[in-house]
């Protein structure tokens, strides 16, 4: 099963490589990875989506927790959560395809953020499935380049991933 694990880790050089290294060292898989600073400058938040049965996910979270740089983590898929990913994608936009692309962009509530005579650059956010669906819809037209951020996630409601709680 697919899991989304969010990690608060020390904002220190080397911390990221320890987390990523753990995955390859222990033969765990990484589907997406997203990392950025948080409101607390001593911490960064890393979100990883991974696949595995319960035993493997248990091992992943235990080994992550064991890393000294990892302060706290949560498996978001254990509860209600919001999952978002941002994608920038360049698609061919020539002739009749130009309108076709524009319509699809509207259907997906995406935005065209840059334009040339032959190319649209589209920005789209949503969960990973929505982004996949958009790419599929664009398939026949011609996807030229894709940049995805990887999944970011947060729990629904009042549950926090924070060192205060």
């Amino acid at each position: 099963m697919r899991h989304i694990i969010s990690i608060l880790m020390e904002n220190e050089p080397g911390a990221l490589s320890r987390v990523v290294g753990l995955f390859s060292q222990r033969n765990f898989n990484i589907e997406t990875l997203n990392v950025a600073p948080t409101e607390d400058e001593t911490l960064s938040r890393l979100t990883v989506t991974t696949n595995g049965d319960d035993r493997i996910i248990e091992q992943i979270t235990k080994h992550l927790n064991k890393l000294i740089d990892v302060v706290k983590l949560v498996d978001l898929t254990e509860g209600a959560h919001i999952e978002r990913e941002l994608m920038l994608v360049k698609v061919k936009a020539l002739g009749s395809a130009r309108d076709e692309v524009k319509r699809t962009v509207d259907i997906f509530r995406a935005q065209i953020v840059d334009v040339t005579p032959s190319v649209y650059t589209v920005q789209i956010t949503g969960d990973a499935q929505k982004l996949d669906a958009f790419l599929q819809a664009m398939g026949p037209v011609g996807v030229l380049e894709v940049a995805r951020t990887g999944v970011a996630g947060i729990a629904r409601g009042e549950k926090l991933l924070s060192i205060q709680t």
Partner: protein
Amino acid sequence: MELLSGADMIARFLKDEGVEYIYGYPGGAALHIYDALFRQEEVKHILVRHEQAATHMADGYARASGRPGVVLVTSGPGATNAVTGIATAYMDSIPMVVICGQVASHLIGEDAFQETDIVGVTRPIVKHSFSIRHPSEIPEVMRKAFYLAATGRPGPVVIDIPKDMTAPTERYEYVYPKKAKIRSYNPVTRGHTGQIRKAVDMLLKAQRPVLFAGGGVITGRASEALTDLARRLDIPVITSLMGIGAYPQNDRQSLGWPGMHGSYESNMAMHESDLVVGIGVRFDDRVTNNVSKFCPGARIVHIDVDPSSISKTVRADVPIVGAADSVLNEMLGMLSEREQENREALDEWWRRIDGWRGERQGKLYEPAAPGEPLKPQQVIEAVHRATNGDAYVVTDVGQHQMFAAQYYKFNRPNHWISSSGLGTMGYGFPAAMGIKLSYPEEQVVLFTGEGSFQMMMQELSTCKQFGIAVKIINLNNASLGMVRQWQDLNYKSRHAHSYVESMPDFEKLLAAYGFRAITVSNEEDLPAALDATFRSKDELVFLDVHVDPYEHVYPMQVPQGAMRDMLLSKTERT
């Protein structure tokens, strides 16, 4: 307030931390630190002849004393030479602090002379690592390194120190930090009481229970609690290879150690048990054999300080995250309120166990007949007698290691010293040196093989310089015996490179360093040779014992089988 250079802070910190010896080898990036060590007397530096030996010395000391061993090496090749020893310590959860010089900060990343990203290289084999970015950080980082190395599940910690951080011209305030605070690191001590109660319940009811104790019982200083618990309940005790000595082996309740070359009775008992209580063990593949056939009728209680160790290979029915000592003592406390309900079942269980013991009694090996080459097993038994079973016993890796584990009997923790998880040939000699240096009044015996010894024999020179009087028993079978055994069993005796051709003349080799070697090749000469070897505690003696090159280690579990599937000799199997 005291102002010290980074280098002086390191020396001073080591003194304040109570470190007596550090093991190391100098080089450019570490020279400021070496100069600081030169200008003080409290911390003694032992110059090895290869950095790997420094790590093994630190490791041996750590296993015997329970305190972190400390290593100092230079950047680049100095640090990479230490890698094998760091990996060895990591696999066996041994506390160690490795200080590595590094090229100056402004050169990092430029492929400078002797630059290696040692933090990167060692990342998967350390508990944690630090890079110093400002000299003023040194005391705090070192305090954290020692704290991390020694607490929770211990392990090696690397500190990478760019040369400019130790420059004599820059001085900063030094205070020995009383406490290390790491917000993300709070090793558990107490286990969950509800879970512990469940485990006690199971122990009081089980029909065929075994206690299975590992290295965690030794590092966690829980031998006494384990012994108490086992005796109160009359339950058999099996220790892992790392746990040897956690429970007295001369006791009736000790079944020895299990696994690939474990005792017949421990493998049989574990396989047939209905409850395995693992304490500070990690159920590794050399113990379980085929995990899917492991202990088919047993429920598993697993006590460990490291949650990631629990249910990693064998699913635990009752996981207990906690320190061995605390959990075992809590169990003992609960016993007084409870009735033991399995006394009769245990009598029956012991009858079966004694049956297994009886079946193998006296049939483990055939001692040499007059005129035949000595058996390695009988040499170990003779050394056991000659040292009253009281020595620190260190091994290298191979057949001799397994024989030593089988035939030397240990009644105390911290006296069996062997690279179990990584199986590092070359480990033994320096590890023995590290112990002898700190315990000069004790006999420290190394069982090695001519293959393993030649991986670290340059350390004879270190022994000469510092007067380190270890006793080296070279079980010389003129071959890489363990490899050869596998080739006998799995490759129709095609001995691809398992011979050691052009064997050195060990007497001359030792003489070159000013030491005595004694060669023995038959039983009649063995007692006198042992006598000469152990007469004094202050002389390094190398006993070169020519043993039967065709001997195999048995029992040996059948690959992919259950624990009870064993070859018992060249002709018998279970």
